[in-house]
Protein backbone atom coordinates (compact mmCIF):
# COMPACT_ATOMS: atom_id res chain seq x y z
CA UNK A 1 0.00 0.00 0.00
CA UNK A 2 1.21 3.50 -0.80
CA UNK A 3 1.89 5.40 2.42
CA UNK A 4 -0.48 8.26 3.11
CA UNK A 5 2.42 10.71 3.39
CA UNK A 6 3.35 10.00 -0.23
CA UNK A 7 -0.21 10.62 -1.39
CA UNK A 8 -0.52 13.89 0.44
CA UNK A 9 2.93 15.00 -0.74
CA UNK A 10 1.91 14.28 -4.32
CA UNK A 11 -1.22 16.33 -3.82
CA UNK A 12 0.87 19.17 -2.41
CA UNK A 13 3.01 19.13 -5.54
CA UNK A 14 -0.12 19.30 -7.66
CA UNK A 15 -1.40 22.18 -5.54
CA UNK A 16 1.91 24.02 -5.98
CA UNK A 17 1.69 23.52 -9.75
CA UNK A 18 -1.84 24.92 -9.75
CA UNK A 19 -0.69 27.95 -7.73
CA UNK A 20 2.15 28.63 -10.14
CA UNK A 21 -0.13 28.26 -13.18
CA UNK A 22 -2.76 30.35 -11.42
CA UNK A 23 -0.38 33.21 -10.67
CA UNK A 24 0.96 33.01 -14.21
CA UNK A 25 -2.50 33.23 -15.70
CA UNK A 26 -3.27 36.28 -13.58
CA UNK A 27 -0.53 38.12 -15.49
CA UNK A 28 -2.87 38.33 -18.53
CA UNK A 29 -6.33 39.86 -18.40
CA UNK A 30 -7.82 37.28 -20.77
CA UNK A 31 -6.79 34.34 -18.60
CA UNK A 32 -6.86 35.97 -15.17
CA UNK A 33 -10.15 34.50 -14.01
CA UNK A 34 -9.05 31.00 -14.97
CA UNK A 35 -5.91 31.67 -12.96
CA UNK A 36 -7.92 32.57 -9.90
CA UNK A 37 -9.96 29.40 -10.33
CA UNK A 38 -6.76 27.31 -10.57
CA UNK A 39 -5.53 28.94 -7.38
CA UNK A 40 -8.67 28.08 -5.47
CA UNK A 41 -8.61 24.46 -6.70
CA UNK A 42 -4.98 24.25 -5.60
CA UNK A 43 -6.00 25.44 -2.16
CA UNK A 44 -8.80 22.88 -1.95
CA UNK A 45 -6.36 20.11 -2.92
CA UNK A 46 -3.86 21.20 -0.27
CA UNK A 47 -6.57 21.22 2.40
CA UNK A 48 -7.88 17.78 1.43
CA UNK A 49 -4.32 16.42 1.32
CA UNK A 50 -3.70 17.70 4.83
CA UNK A 51 -6.90 16.21 6.22
CA UNK A 52 -6.06 12.86 4.58
CA UNK A 53 -2.61 12.89 6.12
CA UNK A 54 -4.02 13.66 9.56
CA UNK A 55 -6.61 10.91 9.24
CA UNK A 56 -4.14 8.21 8.21
CA UNK A 57 -1.26 9.26 10.44
CA UNK A 58 -3.34 8.38 13.47
CA UNK A 59 -3.38 11.94 14.79
CA UNK A 60 -7.01 12.27 13.79
CA UNK A 61 -8.86 15.44 12.85
CA UNK A 62 -10.32 17.78 15.45
CA UNK A 63 -13.47 18.21 13.37
CA UNK A 64 -15.42 20.24 15.87
CA UNK A 65 -12.79 22.94 16.38
CA UNK A 66 -11.79 22.98 12.74
CA UNK A 67 -15.38 23.10 11.55
CA UNK A 68 -16.43 25.94 13.82
CA UNK A 69 -13.28 28.00 13.13
CA UNK A 70 -13.43 27.45 9.37
CA UNK A 71 -17.11 28.34 9.24
CA UNK A 72 -16.71 31.58 11.15
CA UNK A 73 -13.61 32.51 9.15
CA UNK A 74 -15.19 31.73 5.78
CA UNK A 75 -18.28 33.72 6.66
CA UNK A 76 -16.26 36.78 7.65
CA UNK A 77 -14.00 36.45 4.61
CA UNK A 78 -16.98 36.05 2.29
CA UNK A 79 -18.77 39.07 3.69
CA UNK A 80 -15.64 41.23 3.45
CA UNK A 81 -15.04 40.11 -0.13
CA UNK A 82 -18.65 40.67 -1.12
CA UNK A 83 -19.19 44.10 0.42
CA UNK A 84 -15.79 45.82 0.45
CA UNK A 85 -15.81 48.89 -1.79
CA UNK A 86 -13.27 48.98 -4.59
CA UNK A 87 -11.86 52.20 -3.14
CA UNK A 88 -11.33 50.25 0.09
CA UNK A 89 -9.41 47.45 -1.63
CA UNK A 90 -6.03 48.43 -0.13
CA UNK A 91 -7.21 48.25 3.47
CA UNK A 92 -9.09 45.02 2.79
CA UNK A 93 -5.93 43.43 1.41
CA UNK A 94 -3.97 44.84 4.37
CA UNK A 95 -6.46 43.23 6.75
CA UNK A 96 -6.12 39.87 4.98
CA UNK A 97 -2.32 40.17 5.18
CA UNK A 98 -2.62 40.86 8.85
CA UNK A 99 -4.80 37.84 9.61
CA UNK A 100 -2.73 35.50 7.45
CA UNK A 101 0.46 36.55 9.21
CA UNK A 102 -1.06 36.13 12.66
CA UNK A 103 -2.15 32.64 11.61
CA UNK A 104 1.47 31.83 10.68
CA UNK A 105 2.71 33.00 14.09
CA UNK A 106 0.07 30.97 15.93
CA UNK A 107 0.87 27.87 13.89
CA UNK A 108 4.57 28.10 14.71
CA UNK A 109 3.86 28.69 18.42
CA UNK A 110 1.48 25.74 18.45
CA UNK A 111 4.07 23.44 16.90
CA UNK A 112 6.79 24.56 19.25
CA UNK A 113 4.49 23.66 22.15
CA UNK A 114 3.83 20.12 20.97
CA UNK A 115 6.71 18.99 18.81
CA UNK A 116 9.75 21.28 19.06
CA UNK A 117 12.71 20.29 16.91
CA UNK A 118 16.27 20.61 18.16
CA UNK A 119 17.76 20.92 14.68
CA UNK A 120 19.55 24.31 14.69
CA UNK A 121 18.22 25.28 11.26
CA UNK A 122 14.62 24.48 12.24
CA UNK A 123 15.03 26.49 15.44
CA UNK A 124 16.37 29.32 13.31
CA UNK A 125 13.39 29.24 10.94
CA UNK A 126 11.01 29.05 13.92
CA UNK A 127 12.12 32.29 15.53
CA UNK A 128 12.62 33.98 12.17
CA UNK A 129 9.11 33.10 11.10
CA UNK A 130 7.72 34.45 14.37
CA UNK A 131 9.55 37.74 13.85
CA UNK A 132 8.47 38.14 10.20
CA UNK A 133 4.92 37.01 10.91
CA UNK A 134 4.46 39.25 13.94
CA UNK A 135 5.93 42.30 12.18
CA UNK A 136 3.64 41.67 9.20
CA UNK A 137 0.68 41.17 11.56
CA UNK A 138 0.88 44.46 13.44
CA UNK A 139 2.41 46.31 10.49
CA UNK A 140 -0.56 45.37 8.31
CA UNK A 141 -2.98 46.27 11.10
CA UNK A 142 -1.46 49.75 11.33
CA UNK A 143 -1.57 50.07 7.52
CA UNK A 144 -5.22 49.02 7.66
CA UNK A 145 -5.88 51.62 10.35
CA UNK A 146 -4.25 54.36 8.33
CA UNK A 147 -6.04 53.47 5.09
CA UNK A 148 -9.38 53.13 6.87
CA UNK A 149 -8.63 56.48 8.51
CA UNK A 150 -8.91 55.05 12.00
CA UNK A 151 -5.36 56.31 12.49
CA UNK A 152 -3.98 59.57 11.10
CA UNK A 153 -2.63 59.06 7.58
CA UNK A 154 0.31 61.37 8.09
CA UNK A 155 3.54 59.90 9.46
CA UNK A 156 3.53 59.85 13.26
CA UNK A 157 6.94 61.10 14.30
CA UNK A 158 8.36 61.48 17.77
CA UNK A 159 11.80 62.40 19.06
CA UNK A 160 14.33 59.60 19.14
CA UNK A 161 12.28 57.51 16.74
CA UNK A 162 15.20 55.93 14.93
CA UNK A 163 16.79 55.02 18.28
CA UNK A 164 13.55 53.54 19.62
CA UNK A 165 13.05 51.44 16.49
CA UNK A 166 16.70 50.42 16.54
CA UNK A 167 16.58 49.35 20.20
CA UNK A 168 13.42 47.29 19.77
CA UNK A 169 14.88 45.70 16.64
CA UNK A 170 18.06 44.80 18.49
CA UNK A 171 16.11 43.45 21.48
CA UNK A 172 14.01 41.33 19.10
CA UNK A 173 17.04 39.76 17.50
CA UNK A 174 18.79 39.27 20.85
CA UNK A 175 15.81 37.23 22.04
CA UNK A 176 15.94 35.41 18.70
CA UNK A 177 19.59 34.57 19.37
CA UNK A 178 18.67 33.35 22.86
CA UNK A 179 16.10 31.02 21.33
CA UNK A 180 18.77 29.78 18.97
CA UNK A 181 21.14 29.00 21.85
CA UNK A 182 18.61 27.58 24.26
CA UNK A 183 16.40 25.84 21.73
CA UNK A 184 12.64 26.34 21.61
CA UNK A 185 11.76 23.41 23.82
CA UNK A 186 10.56 23.47 27.41
CA UNK A 187 9.00 26.22 29.49
CA UNK A 188 11.98 28.57 29.07
CA UNK A 189 11.94 28.09 25.33
CA UNK A 190 8.22 28.94 25.17
CA UNK A 191 8.69 32.01 27.36
CA UNK A 192 11.41 33.22 25.05
CA UNK A 193 9.11 32.69 22.06
CA UNK A 194 6.28 34.66 23.72
CA UNK A 195 8.69 37.46 24.48
CA UNK A 196 9.89 37.36 20.88
CA UNK A 197 6.31 37.55 19.60
CA UNK A 198 5.59 40.58 21.79
CA UNK A 199 8.72 42.43 20.76
CA UNK A 200 8.21 41.72 17.06
CA UNK A 201 4.59 42.92 17.29
CA UNK A 202 5.84 46.16 18.81
CA UNK A 203 8.48 46.45 16.09
CA UNK A 204 5.82 46.09 13.39
CA UNK A 205 3.80 48.94 14.90
CA UNK A 206 6.81 51.24 15.30
CA UNK A 207 8.03 50.62 11.77
CA UNK A 208 4.69 51.30 10.10
CA UNK A 209 3.26 54.10 12.22
CA UNK A 210 5.86 56.57 10.92
CA UNK A 211 5.13 55.90 7.25
CA UNK A 212 2.90 58.38 5.45
CA UNK A 213 -0.32 57.60 3.61
CA UNK A 214 1.27 58.38 0.24
CA UNK A 215 3.80 55.60 0.73
CA UNK A 216 1.14 52.97 1.33
CA UNK A 217 1.61 51.28 -2.09
CA UNK A 218 5.17 50.41 -1.06
CA UNK A 219 4.19 49.31 2.44
CA UNK A 220 1.39 47.03 1.26
CA UNK A 221 3.64 45.39 -1.33
CA UNK A 222 6.35 44.86 1.26
CA UNK A 223 3.90 43.39 3.76
CA UNK A 224 2.63 41.07 1.03
CA UNK A 225 6.18 39.84 0.64
CA UNK A 226 6.59 39.41 4.43
CA UNK A 227 3.41 37.36 4.68
CA UNK A 228 4.82 35.01 2.06
CA UNK A 229 8.15 34.73 3.85
CA UNK A 230 6.42 34.07 7.18
CA UNK A 231 4.59 31.18 5.49
CA UNK A 232 7.77 29.81 3.94
CA UNK A 233 9.74 29.89 7.18
CA UNK A 234 6.81 28.33 9.03
CA UNK A 235 6.92 25.65 6.32
CA UNK A 236 10.44 24.69 7.42
CA UNK A 237 9.27 24.35 11.03
CA UNK A 238 6.52 21.98 9.91
CA UNK A 239 8.59 20.30 7.20
CA UNK A 240 5.74 21.09 4.83
CA UNK A 241 6.52 21.52 1.11
CA UNK A 242 3.23 23.25 0.27
CA UNK A 243 3.97 26.05 2.72
CA UNK A 244 7.59 26.46 1.64
CA UNK A 245 6.91 26.63 -2.09
CA UNK A 246 3.86 28.86 -1.81
CA UNK A 247 5.48 31.19 0.68
CA UNK A 248 8.54 31.59 -1.55
CA UNK A 249 6.33 32.38 -4.59
CA UNK A 250 4.41 35.05 -2.72
CA UNK A 251 7.52 36.46 -1.09
CA UNK A 252 9.13 36.93 -4.50
CA UNK A 253 6.06 38.49 -6.08
CA UNK A 254 5.59 40.98 -3.24
CA UNK A 255 9.22 41.93 -3.54
CA UNK A 256 8.85 42.69 -7.26
CA UNK A 257 5.88 44.97 -6.61
CA UNK A 258 7.81 46.71 -3.83
CA UNK A 259 10.64 47.42 -6.25
CA UNK A 260 8.26 48.74 -8.93
CA UNK A 261 6.53 51.06 -6.45
CA UNK A 262 9.79 52.42 -5.07
CA UNK A 263 10.98 53.16 -8.58
CA UNK A 264 7.73 54.95 -9.39
CA UNK A 265 8.22 57.26 -6.44
CA UNK A 266 11.96 57.63 -6.92
CA UNK A 267 12.52 56.49 -3.35
CA UNK A 268 14.67 53.77 -1.92
CA UNK A 269 13.05 51.22 0.35
CA UNK A 270 15.20 52.36 3.28
CA UNK A 271 14.04 55.91 2.66
CA UNK A 272 10.36 54.88 2.70
CA UNK A 273 10.74 52.96 5.97
CA UNK A 274 12.97 55.35 7.86
CA UNK A 275 12.28 58.60 6.03
CA UNK A 276 9.02 59.89 7.47
CA UNK A 277 9.49 62.18 4.51
CA UNK A 278 6.00 63.60 4.06
CA UNK A 279 6.08 65.28 7.45
CA UNK A 280 9.45 66.93 7.12
CA UNK A 281 8.71 68.32 3.72
CA UNK A 282 5.43 69.88 4.70
CA UNK A 283 7.16 72.08 7.24
CA UNK A 284 9.62 73.47 4.69
CA UNK A 285 7.61 73.60 1.52
CA UNK A 286 8.05 77.32 0.96
CA UNK A 287 5.80 79.45 -1.18
CA UNK A 288 2.34 78.23 -2.16
CA UNK A 289 1.37 81.45 -3.91
CA UNK A 290 0.15 81.12 -7.45
CA UNK A 291 0.03 83.74 -10.16
CA UNK A 292 -1.16 83.54 -13.76
CA UNK A 293 -3.99 81.12 -12.93
CA UNK A 294 -6.57 80.83 -15.69
CA UNK A 295 -9.91 79.79 -14.31
CA UNK A 296 -12.15 77.84 -16.63
CA UNK A 297 -15.78 76.71 -16.72
CA UNK A 298 -17.52 73.50 -17.80
CA UNK A 299 -18.76 75.37 -20.90
CA UNK A 300 -15.26 76.34 -21.96
CA UNK A 301 -13.97 72.85 -21.20
CA UNK A 302 -16.73 71.38 -23.38
CA UNK A 303 -15.78 73.68 -26.25
CA UNK A 304 -12.13 72.69 -25.91
CA UNK A 305 -13.11 69.04 -25.99
CA UNK A 306 -15.37 69.60 -28.98
CA UNK A 307 -12.53 70.95 -31.07
CA UNK A 308 -10.10 68.26 -29.89
CA UNK A 309 -9.37 65.02 -31.68
CA UNK A 310 -7.27 63.34 -29.03
CA UNK A 311 -7.94 63.40 -25.29
CA UNK A 312 -5.98 61.87 -22.44
CA UNK A 313 -7.48 61.61 -18.97
CA UNK A 314 -5.12 61.52 -15.98
CA UNK A 315 -7.08 60.22 -12.99
CA UNK A 316 -5.73 60.27 -9.45
CA UNK A 317 -6.93 58.85 -6.20
CA UNK A 318 -8.93 62.00 -5.42
CA UNK A 319 -11.23 61.11 -8.29
CA UNK A 320 -12.13 57.84 -6.59
CA UNK A 321 -12.58 59.52 -3.22
CA UNK A 322 -15.09 61.86 -4.87
CA UNK A 323 -16.95 58.77 -6.19
CA UNK A 324 -16.61 60.25 -9.65
CA UNK A 325 -16.31 56.93 -11.52
CA UNK A 326 -19.80 57.12 -12.97
CA UNK A 327 -19.40 60.75 -14.03
CA UNK A 328 -16.16 59.86 -15.78
CA UNK A 329 -17.89 57.03 -17.61
CA UNK A 330 -20.57 59.47 -18.82
CA UNK A 331 -17.96 61.82 -20.22
CA UNK A 332 -15.99 58.92 -21.70
CA UNK A 333 -19.06 57.66 -23.56
CA UNK A 334 -20.05 61.11 -24.77
CA UNK A 335 -16.54 61.68 -26.14
CA UNK A 336 -16.55 58.27 -27.80
CA UNK A 337 -19.86 58.99 -29.52
CA UNK A 338 -18.38 62.04 -31.21
CA UNK A 339 -15.42 60.02 -32.40
CA UNK A 340 -12.81 61.45 -30.05
CA UNK A 341 -9.79 59.31 -29.31
CA UNK A 342 -9.76 58.95 -25.50
CA UNK A 343 -7.00 57.34 -23.50
CA UNK A 344 -6.28 57.08 -19.80
CA UNK A 345 -2.80 57.65 -18.43
CA UNK A 346 -2.18 55.78 -15.20
CA UNK A 347 0.73 56.70 -12.98
CA UNK A 348 2.07 53.69 -11.05
CA UNK A 349 1.22 55.28 -7.70
CA UNK A 350 -2.15 56.69 -8.75
CA UNK A 351 -3.90 54.86 -5.92
CA UNK A 352 -3.35 53.41 -2.50
CA UNK A 353 -1.91 50.12 -3.72
CA UNK A 354 -0.20 48.94 -6.91
CA UNK A 355 -2.68 48.90 -9.81
CA UNK A 356 -5.49 50.32 -7.68
CA UNK A 357 -6.53 52.94 -10.24
CA UNK A 358 -6.90 50.29 -12.94
CA UNK A 359 -9.40 48.43 -10.77
CA UNK A 360 -11.29 51.63 -10.00
CA UNK A 361 -11.57 52.45 -13.72
CA UNK A 362 -12.59 48.88 -14.50
CA UNK A 363 -15.37 49.36 -11.98
CA UNK A 364 -16.37 52.48 -13.94
CA UNK A 365 -16.62 50.30 -17.10
CA UNK A 366 -13.60 51.86 -18.77
CA UNK A 367 -12.14 49.15 -21.06
CA UNK A 368 -8.72 48.07 -19.81
CA UNK A 369 -7.11 48.45 -23.26
CA UNK A 370 -7.75 52.22 -23.00
CA UNK A 371 -5.49 52.40 -19.95
CA UNK A 372 -1.86 53.23 -20.61
CA UNK A 373 1.03 53.09 -18.20
CA UNK A 374 3.55 55.87 -17.94
CA UNK A 375 6.24 54.55 -20.30
CA UNK A 376 3.73 53.79 -23.01
CA UNK A 377 1.93 57.12 -23.04
CA UNK A 378 4.48 59.74 -22.07
CA UNK A 379 5.58 60.24 -25.68
CA UNK A 380 2.00 60.92 -26.77
CA UNK A 381 1.19 63.97 -24.65
CA UNK A 382 2.88 66.40 -27.04
CA UNK A 383 0.55 65.30 -29.84
CA UNK A 384 -2.54 65.43 -27.68
CA UNK A 385 -5.10 68.21 -27.88
CA UNK A 386 -6.64 68.09 -24.41
CA UNK A 387 -5.52 66.48 -21.17
CA UNK A 388 -8.00 66.27 -18.31
CA UNK A 389 -6.36 65.91 -14.90
CA UNK A 390 -8.84 64.84 -12.26
CA UNK A 391 -8.01 64.05 -8.65
CA UNK A 392 -4.27 63.90 -9.32
CA UNK A 393 -1.60 66.44 -8.49
CA UNK A 394 2.02 65.49 -7.76
CA UNK A 395 2.18 62.94 -10.58
CA UNK A 396 1.83 65.71 -13.21
CA UNK A 397 4.07 68.28 -11.50
CA UNK A 398 6.71 69.33 -14.06
CA UNK A 399 8.98 70.36 -11.15
CA UNK A 400 9.80 66.67 -10.77
CA UNK A 401 11.79 66.83 -14.00
CA UNK A 402 12.74 70.52 -14.13
CA UNK A 403 13.46 71.80 -10.63
CA UNK A 404 16.40 70.07 -8.92
CA UNK A 405 15.49 71.70 -5.61
CA UNK A 406 11.97 70.22 -5.55
CA UNK A 407 11.40 67.32 -3.15
CA UNK A 408 9.70 65.60 -6.07
CA UNK A 409 12.77 65.90 -8.27
CA UNK A 410 13.56 62.64 -10.02
CA UNK A 411 10.12 61.11 -9.60
CA UNK A 412 8.81 59.87 -12.96
CA UNK A 413 5.79 62.00 -13.92
CA UNK A 414 3.17 61.98 -16.63
CA UNK A 415 4.11 64.71 -19.11
CA UNK A 416 0.66 66.30 -19.15
CA UNK A 417 2.20 69.77 -19.48
CA UNK A 418 3.32 68.93 -23.03
CA UNK A 419 -0.25 68.72 -24.31
CA UNK A 420 -1.84 71.60 -26.19
CA UNK A 421 -4.31 72.28 -23.40
CA UNK A 422 -4.60 70.92 -19.88
CA UNK A 423 -7.89 71.04 -17.98
CA UNK A 424 -7.17 70.63 -14.28
CA UNK A 425 -10.23 69.69 -12.25
CA UNK A 426 -9.53 70.48 -8.62
CA UNK A 427 -11.50 71.92 -5.74
CA UNK A 428 -8.85 74.40 -4.67
CA UNK A 429 -5.15 75.01 -4.71
CA UNK A 430 -4.22 72.64 -1.89
CA UNK A 431 -0.96 70.77 -2.46
CA UNK A 432 -0.65 67.03 -3.07
CA UNK A 433 0.96 64.54 -0.72
CA UNK A 434 4.43 65.91 -1.22
CA UNK A 435 3.16 69.27 0.00
CA UNK A 436 4.73 71.21 -2.82
CA UNK A 437 3.50 73.80 -5.30
CA UNK A 438 2.51 72.48 -8.73
CA UNK A 439 4.04 74.67 -11.44
CA UNK A 440 1.66 73.21 -14.02
CA UNK A 441 -1.18 75.37 -12.57
CA UNK A 442 0.64 78.48 -13.79
CA UNK A 443 1.53 77.18 -17.24
CA UNK A 444 0.04 79.04 -20.21
CA UNK A 445 -1.69 75.94 -21.55
CA UNK A 446 -3.37 75.06 -18.24
CA UNK A 447 -6.99 75.85 -17.37
CA UNK A 448 -8.16 75.41 -13.81
CA UNK A 449 -11.67 74.11 -13.27
CA UNK A 450 -12.29 74.67 -9.57
CA UNK A 451 -14.93 72.05 -8.93
CA UNK A 452 -15.47 68.77 -7.17
CA UNK A 453 -14.31 65.91 -9.42
CA UNK A 454 -17.74 64.33 -9.77
CA UNK A 455 -19.60 67.58 -10.35
CA UNK A 456 -16.94 68.87 -12.73
CA UNK A 457 -17.00 65.75 -14.89
CA UNK A 458 -20.81 65.60 -14.90
CA UNK A 459 -21.17 69.19 -16.00
CA UNK A 460 -18.48 68.82 -18.62
CA UNK A 461 -20.29 65.78 -20.01
CA UNK A 462 -23.58 67.64 -20.02
CA UNK A 463 -22.18 70.73 -21.74
CA UNK A 464 -20.24 68.59 -24.19
CA UNK A 465 -23.33 66.66 -25.29
CA UNK A 466 -25.11 69.97 -25.93
CA UNK A 467 -22.34 71.54 -28.03
Amino acid at each position, binding site marked *: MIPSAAISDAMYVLAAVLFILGIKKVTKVQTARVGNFF*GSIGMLLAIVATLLRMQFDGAGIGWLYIGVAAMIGSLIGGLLARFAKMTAMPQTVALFHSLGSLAAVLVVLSFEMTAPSSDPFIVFTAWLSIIIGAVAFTGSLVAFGKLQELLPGRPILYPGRTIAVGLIAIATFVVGALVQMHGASGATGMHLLYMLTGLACLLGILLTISIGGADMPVVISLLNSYTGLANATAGFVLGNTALIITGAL*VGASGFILTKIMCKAMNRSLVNVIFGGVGAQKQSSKGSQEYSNLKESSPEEAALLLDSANSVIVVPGYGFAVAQAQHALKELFEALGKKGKDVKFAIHPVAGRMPGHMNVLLAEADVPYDKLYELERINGEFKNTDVVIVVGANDVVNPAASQDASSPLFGMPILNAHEARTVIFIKRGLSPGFAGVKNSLFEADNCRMLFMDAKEGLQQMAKEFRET
Partner: protein
Amino acid sequence: MIELFALITFFILAVFVGYEIIAKIPPTLHTPQMSITNAICGIIIVGALLAVPSSEPELATILGAIAVGLASVNVVGGFMITERMLKMFKRAK
Protein backbone atom coordinates in the same frame (compact mmCIF):
# COMPACT_ATOMS: atom_id res chain seq x y z
CA MET B 1 10.23 13.23 6.35
CA ILE B 2 11.94 14.99 3.52
CA GLU B 3 15.48 16.03 4.17
CA LEU B 4 16.17 19.58 5.12
CA PHE B 5 18.43 20.20 2.18
CA ALA B 6 15.67 19.27 -0.23
CA LEU B 7 13.34 21.74 1.49
CA ILE B 8 15.88 24.53 1.15
CA THR B 9 16.25 23.63 -2.53
CA PHE B 10 12.47 23.88 -2.99
CA PHE B 11 12.49 27.27 -1.35
CA ILE B 12 15.25 28.71 -3.52
CA LEU B 13 13.79 27.34 -6.75
CA ALA B 14 10.34 28.63 -5.87
CA VAL B 15 11.71 32.13 -5.27
CA PHE B 16 13.12 32.09 -8.80
CA VAL B 17 9.92 30.73 -10.29
CA GLY B 18 7.94 33.41 -8.48
CA TYR B 19 10.26 36.11 -9.72
CA GLU B 20 10.19 34.89 -13.32
CA ILE B 21 6.43 34.48 -13.68
CA ILE B 22 5.56 37.80 -12.12
CA ALA B 23 8.32 40.06 -13.43
CA LYS B 24 6.40 40.81 -16.63
CA ILE B 25 2.95 41.47 -15.18
CA PRO B 26 1.21 44.55 -16.65
CA PRO B 27 0.37 47.31 -14.12
CA THR B 28 -3.34 46.82 -14.88
CA LEU B 29 -3.21 43.57 -12.95
CA HIS B 30 -1.07 44.59 -10.00
CA THR B 31 -3.97 44.74 -7.58
CA PRO B 32 -5.60 41.44 -8.62
CA GLN B 33 -2.19 39.82 -8.55
CA MET B 34 -1.51 40.98 -5.02
CA SER B 35 -4.98 39.87 -4.09
CA ILE B 36 -4.52 36.34 -5.48
CA THR B 37 -1.07 35.91 -3.93
CA ASN B 38 -2.66 37.07 -0.71
CA ALA B 39 -5.34 34.40 -1.06
CA ILE B 40 -2.70 31.79 -1.79
CA CYS B 41 -0.93 32.86 1.40
CA GLY B 42 -3.91 31.36 3.13
CA ILE B 43 -2.03 28.08 2.55
CA ILE B 44 -0.99 28.51 6.19
CA ILE B 45 -4.36 26.85 6.78
CA VAL B 46 -2.51 23.60 6.05
CA GLY B 47 -0.26 24.19 9.06
CA ALA B 48 -3.20 25.32 11.14
CA LEU B 49 -5.17 22.13 10.38
CA LEU B 50 -2.19 19.98 11.38
CA ALA B 51 -2.21 21.76 14.73
CA VAL B 52 -5.76 20.60 15.48
CA PRO B 53 -5.71 16.79 15.90
CA SER B 54 -8.59 14.93 17.50
CA SER B 55 -6.87 14.63 20.87
CA GLU B 56 -8.10 16.41 24.03
CA PRO B 57 -7.86 20.15 23.41
CA GLU B 58 -4.93 21.97 24.97
CA LEU B 59 -3.49 25.43 24.37
CA ALA B 60 -1.66 24.32 21.22
CA THR B 61 -4.91 22.99 19.72
CA ILE B 62 -6.76 26.18 20.53
CA LEU B 63 -4.05 28.31 18.91
CA GLY B 64 -4.30 26.01 15.88
CA ALA B 65 -8.08 26.40 15.74
CA ILE B 66 -7.79 30.20 15.89
CA ALA B 67 -5.24 29.99 13.07
CA VAL B 68 -7.71 27.88 11.04
CA GLY B 69 -10.29 30.64 11.45
CA LEU B 70 -7.90 33.44 10.50
CA ALA B 71 -6.55 31.55 7.51
CA SER B 72 -10.11 30.80 6.33
CA VAL B 73 -10.87 34.52 6.25
CA ASN B 74 -7.76 34.92 4.13
CA VAL B 75 -8.52 32.04 1.74
CA VAL B 76 -12.23 32.61 1.17
CA GLY B 77 -12.00 36.40 1.19
CA GLY B 78 -8.91 36.45 -0.99
CA PHE B 79 -10.19 34.27 -3.82
CA MET B 80 -13.66 35.82 -3.78
CA ILE B 81 -12.45 39.39 -3.90
CA THR B 82 -10.00 38.58 -6.71
CA GLU B 83 -12.85 37.09 -8.72
CA ARG B 84 -15.00 40.13 -8.03
CA MET B 85 -12.28 42.45 -9.29
CA LEU B 86 -11.39 40.42 -12.37
CA LYS B 87 -15.02 40.22 -13.42
CA MET B 88 -15.01 43.99 -13.92
CA PHE B 89 -12.15 44.07 -16.42
CA LYS B 90 -13.58 44.52 -19.92
CA ARG B 91 -12.11 45.13 -23.34
CA ALA B 92 -13.27 47.93 -25.62
CA LYS B 93 -16.21 46.86 -27.77
